[in-house]
């Protein structure tokens, strides 16, 4: 139970630190704990208390936006805080009110008249949603003991359902056979075998512990175990013919041919049907065992229940394993041309737990946590031959490339030919490709319904793998064409009265009619969005019908068509409109909208956190407080403060404490130690880059918007020129070669760390003309030119991309290629759907372009999740830090180079 004096403590603390003139962020944090304390009071909905609180928060928030508090600001905060303190002490009928509040309901803010018109389909009181407001005592009529109401199940199940969107896709490697395009008219035989097996298990557990007023406890436990095995498919298909192109194409396009296959009609697993639904269809599985055994203890059973406290724990454990193997054989005139095979094993493990606390029948608190792990292994190789070893032999860089890039081998490029192929295979590589790795997804949710799942997707490749002339379904409704201009300015949501009207697209329940979809595929797949009006896409992004993939893609790319300020204001408008009515459709729309607001706030960049946006969000927080929704207010304000504070210190911000006695040089440290510390710093700088910075850079190359990206590229250049300087400076040839040799060794270590950033920085230095034109020891030179093939720019940086794709994370990529790709995606794809594709409309946003951008950015986001296991090593780190500051510029390196070896210009 909340204690009234928590509020006193928080307030006293706030007043004290203000008196001590502590910096703004302390005051911000202490107001947050004050907000937490007040929100747990049962009398928190007294309007006068809310107003006092809002006044205090407003004053603190406004002042903190400035860099420094001045004396007057501190005084003002003290005054407002004291007013609140006095109000709570003297004017608030505290103790009495608190007692009353737990039994009688305090009237919350009046609802608008819209309620009456929209609650018609809300038949039973059971489905009417109980918001988690502290004061709201209109509790749900729970039916029988132990049975959960729909509302209670909502959160855990929602999360589970979302997780189930990540299905195991059908594994369909495309094998390439050498000289398969021979012109002779012989009879070609193709044989393809596919085998798929799955195994699933689920354990559901429910435990209820009830504390009765007389101190005894009651415990009810239920367990349910479901396990299914097999579903084995065995498909063998042979094609014969004189290399007729139609047959071959049909064969490659697996989706269609398999759909036509009768045998596979029952096999819905590999197409859609989320796992979860499969578990609900108990009857379908013969191997089902189900046991329910309620256990009762301290049997005070059927006594009349007074308001006691109880706790209900639900837990789910689920494991699943899917093995898929495909092999293909090609023969011509009875002669074996080639045989290839691949196996993929997907396994996943889900554990989730939800704890609900009740006071009587009133849901007080809900907490949830869980983890989700996915594990994928792909093995390739000819049948009966051992699969490729788990990790590629690290013999030599160049051999390494040949090993993977050579088509004659059982090449790993079955994903080629799909769009943004290299990014998708990069993404996929982060999951599988000859090596095993695990990804842990964690999610949490609370009474607020804000669940956050960090998704990790398979189906992007199938999404982008389209031919160019795919048919589109046009919208059946057209939004009014409003010119793009007129950006919304900051809005004071506390004061704003009129929210919106039904015709407003942003306030609609269903926007599907406005969207441009792919026509030829399953309508149930939400992945097929190709475009639509801005507001329809925003609304779609808030809806659970949209897959997480769309939501993620939307959140990563929305900045290319709507500013964060604009988006937040639109979402707030939608939330406030939906919350006016308390039918279940509206309130779940409000809840979903709110969780998107939280996500958007969570991912705001420093550049965006400026006063118009902050003011919009804070005024919305005040509004939430005034409406009595402390839970949402607390969450939102907390996230916003976290973004504003962002305490992440730069690794370079701390000044070196150790000043070495003697002047150190590069040879005082081992190559491996240097490579480690370079990687440590590179990783820090890389992790600091936020995906929107990359998007913005591709659009307008504004250094202010992309500060961390600029730091990262500058660092690359510094390293490169520093290396040139060190190699060129020594007077003697042997000393220069000693440096060159040292850097070659460092490069080898960097390559082992998969740190492409510094690796390429050093390489660009050693291969730069001022260095390269000099005469070098042949052995060293050969080593260097071997490295050089990586940066061969031919075939759109094929060598580098191949290397990156087969690299085992953690990885620091060369961001130049990413920027180049984003720029070309931007330049090459129209922003809006061309009018000739959509009845002459000019305002539909081309979402396919955003899918492409998402494919690139998502791989960056995934790479950012991996951390190196490298500790900062101060002496080396600071040596590098100080040393790399000194370097010659381009012209100076040329002059120095000419000094060493005179110019021999051919004319």
């Amino acid at each position, binding site marked *: 139970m909340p204690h009234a004096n928590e509020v006193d403590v928080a307030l006293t603390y706030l007043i004290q630190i203000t008196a001590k003139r502590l910096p703004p962020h302390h005051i911000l944090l202490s107001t947050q704990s004050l907000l937490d304390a007040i929100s747990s009071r049962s009398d928190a909905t007294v309007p006068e208390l809310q107003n006092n609180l809002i006044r205090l928060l407003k004053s603190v928030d406004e002042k903190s936006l400035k860099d420094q508090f001045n004396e007057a600001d501190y005084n003002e905060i003290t005054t407002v805080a004291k007013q609140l303190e006095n109000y709570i002490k003297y004017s608030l009928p505290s103790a009495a009110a608190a007692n009353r509040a737990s039994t009688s309901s305090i009237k919350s803010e009046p609802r608008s008249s819209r309620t009456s018109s929209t609650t018609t389909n809300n038949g039973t009181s059971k489905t009417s949603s109980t918001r988690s407001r502290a004061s709201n005592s209109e509790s749900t009529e729970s039916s029988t003991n132990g049975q959960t109401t729909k509302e209670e199940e909502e959160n855990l199940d929602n999360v589970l359902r979302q997780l189930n969107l990540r299905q195991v896709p059908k594994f369909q490697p495309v094998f390439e056979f050498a000289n398969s395009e021979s012109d002779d008219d012989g009879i070609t035989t193709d044989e393809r075998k596919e085998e798929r097996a799955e195994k699933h298990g689920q354990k559901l557990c429910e435990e209820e512990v009830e504390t009765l007023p007389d101190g005894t406890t009651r415990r009810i436990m239920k367990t349910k175990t479901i396990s299914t095995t097999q579903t084995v498919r065995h498909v063998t298909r042979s094609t014969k013919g004189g290399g007729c192109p139609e047959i071959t194409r049909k064969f490659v396009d697996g989706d269609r041919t398999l759909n036509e296959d009768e045998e596979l009609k029952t096999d819905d697993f590999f197409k859609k049907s989320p796992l979860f639904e499969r578990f609900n269809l108990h009857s379908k599985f013969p191997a089902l065992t189900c046991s329910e055994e309620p256990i009762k203890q301290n049997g005070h059973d059927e006594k009349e229940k007074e308001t006691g406290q109880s706790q209900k724990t639900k837990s789910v454990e689920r494991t699943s394993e899917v093995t898929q193997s495909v092999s293909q054989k090609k023969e011509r005139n009875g002669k074996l041309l080639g045989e290839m095979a691949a196996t993929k094993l997907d396994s996943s493990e889900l554990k989730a737990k939800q704890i609900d606390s009740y006071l009587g029948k009133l849901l007080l608190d809900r907490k949830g946590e869980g983890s989700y792990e996915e594990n994928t292994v792909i093995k390739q190789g000819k049948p009966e031959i051992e699969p490729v070893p788990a990790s590629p032999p690290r013999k030599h860089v160049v051999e390494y490339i040949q090993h993977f890039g050579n088509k004659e081998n059982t090449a790993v490029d079955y994903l080629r030919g799909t*769009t*943004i*192929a*290299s*990014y998708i295979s990069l993404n996929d590589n982060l999951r599988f490709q000859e090596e095993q790795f695990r990804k842990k997804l964690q999610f949490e949710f609370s009474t607020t319904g804000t669940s956050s799942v960090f998704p990790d997707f398979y189906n992007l490749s199938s999404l*982008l793998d*389209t031919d*160019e*002339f*795919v048919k589109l379904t046009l919208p059946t409704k057209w939004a009014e064409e409003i010119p793009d201009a007129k950006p919304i300015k900051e809005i004071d949501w506390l004061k704003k009265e009129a929210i919106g009207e039904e015709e407003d697209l942003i306030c609609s329940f269903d926007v599907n009619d406005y969207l441009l979809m792919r026509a030829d595929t399953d309508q149930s797949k939400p992945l097929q969005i190709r475009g639509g009006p801005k507001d329809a896409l925003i609304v779609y992004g808030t809806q659970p019908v949209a897959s997480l993939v769309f939501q993620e893609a939307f959140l990563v790319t929305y900045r290319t068509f709507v500013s964060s300020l604009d988006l937040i204001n639109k979402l707030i408008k939608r939330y406030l409109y939906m919350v006016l009515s308390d039918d279940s459709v509206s309130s779940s729309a409000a809840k979903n909208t709110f969780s998107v607001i939280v996500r958007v706030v969570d991912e705001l960049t420093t550049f965006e956190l400026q006063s118009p946006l902050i003011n919009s969000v804070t005024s919305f927080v005040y509004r939430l407080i005034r409406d009595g929704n402390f839970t949402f207010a607390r969450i939102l304000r907390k996230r916003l403060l976290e973004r504003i504070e962002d305490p992440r210190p730069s690794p370079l911000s701390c000044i070196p404490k150790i000043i070495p006695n003697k002047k150190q040089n590069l040879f005082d440290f081992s190559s491996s130690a240097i490579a480690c510390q370079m990687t440590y710093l590179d990783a820090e700088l890389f992790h600091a880059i936020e995906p929107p910075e990359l998007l913005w*850079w*591709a659009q*307008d*190359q504004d250094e202010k918007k992309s500060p961390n990206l*600029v730091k990262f*590229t*500058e660092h*690359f*250049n510094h390293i*490169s*020129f520093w290396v040139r300087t060190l190699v060129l400076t020594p007077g003697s040839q042997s000393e220069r070669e000693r440096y060159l040799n040292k850097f070659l060794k460092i490069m080898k270590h960097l390559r082992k760390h998969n740190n492409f950033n510094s690796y*390429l*920085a050093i390489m*660009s*230095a050693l*291969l*730069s*003309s001022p260095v390269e*034109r000099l005469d070098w020891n042949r052995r060293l030179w050969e080593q260097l030119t071997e490295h050089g093939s990586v*940066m*061969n*720019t*031919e*075939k*759109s940086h*094929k060598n580098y*991309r191949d290397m990156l794709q087969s690299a085992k994370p953690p990885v620091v990529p060369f961001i*130049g*290629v990413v*920027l*180049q*790709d*984003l*720029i*070309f*995606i*931007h*330049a*090459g*794809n129209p922003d809006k759907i*061309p009018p000739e594709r959509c009845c002459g409309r000019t305002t539909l946003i081309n979402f*396919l372009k955003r899918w*492409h951008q998402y494919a690139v950015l998502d791989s960056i986001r995934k790479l950012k999740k991996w951390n190196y296991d490298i500790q900062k090593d101060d002496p080396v780190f600071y040596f590098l830090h100080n040393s790399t500051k000194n370097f010659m510029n*381009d012209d100076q390196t*040329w002059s120095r180079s000419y000094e060493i070896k005179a110019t*021999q*210009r*051919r*004319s």
Partner: protein
Amino acid sequence: MREFKVVVLGSGGVGKSALTVQFVSSTFIEKYDPTIEDFYRKEIEVDGQPCVLEILDTAGTEQFSSMRDLYIKNGQGFVVVYSITSQQTFHDIKTMREQIVRVKGTENVPILLVGNKVDLAHQRQVRPEEGLALAEYWSCPFTECSAKNNHSVNVMFAEIVREMNYVQNKARDNKSCCTIL
């Protein structure tokens, strides 16, 4: 078939990528994927001779000044682009020929100077005469174009092929002269 490697250079924001996109994809395509292997390759016919251009567009990597050497080394012909709407971008490229010559180690480098964005004539900051003067100083061809209107983009890439042929022939002639001497 002869193959030429062309490097497109110039400051950020001059529309290099748009020029390349315009060139490699003359018709509208719904999906546009820069990561596929032969995206930057295109076959064209110049004066009745078919040839393949492999374009290295430095768009996006302008900030990586340390990589420029490598890019230049990879190229045989150079398209140097500025925007006619920005004096700054014109200023930026003034030393470009010197850089190319230095890296290539020869004065004989095929260069084409291009003023982009003629569709924005009302924002013009660089007069055609200025471009022409620089081109004369570099003794290289010069053209103004617009990626947006597909105005002379193909002509432009044909021109750099001619220039590469011309420089190559000249070099061969020089060499044969030397052997005679």
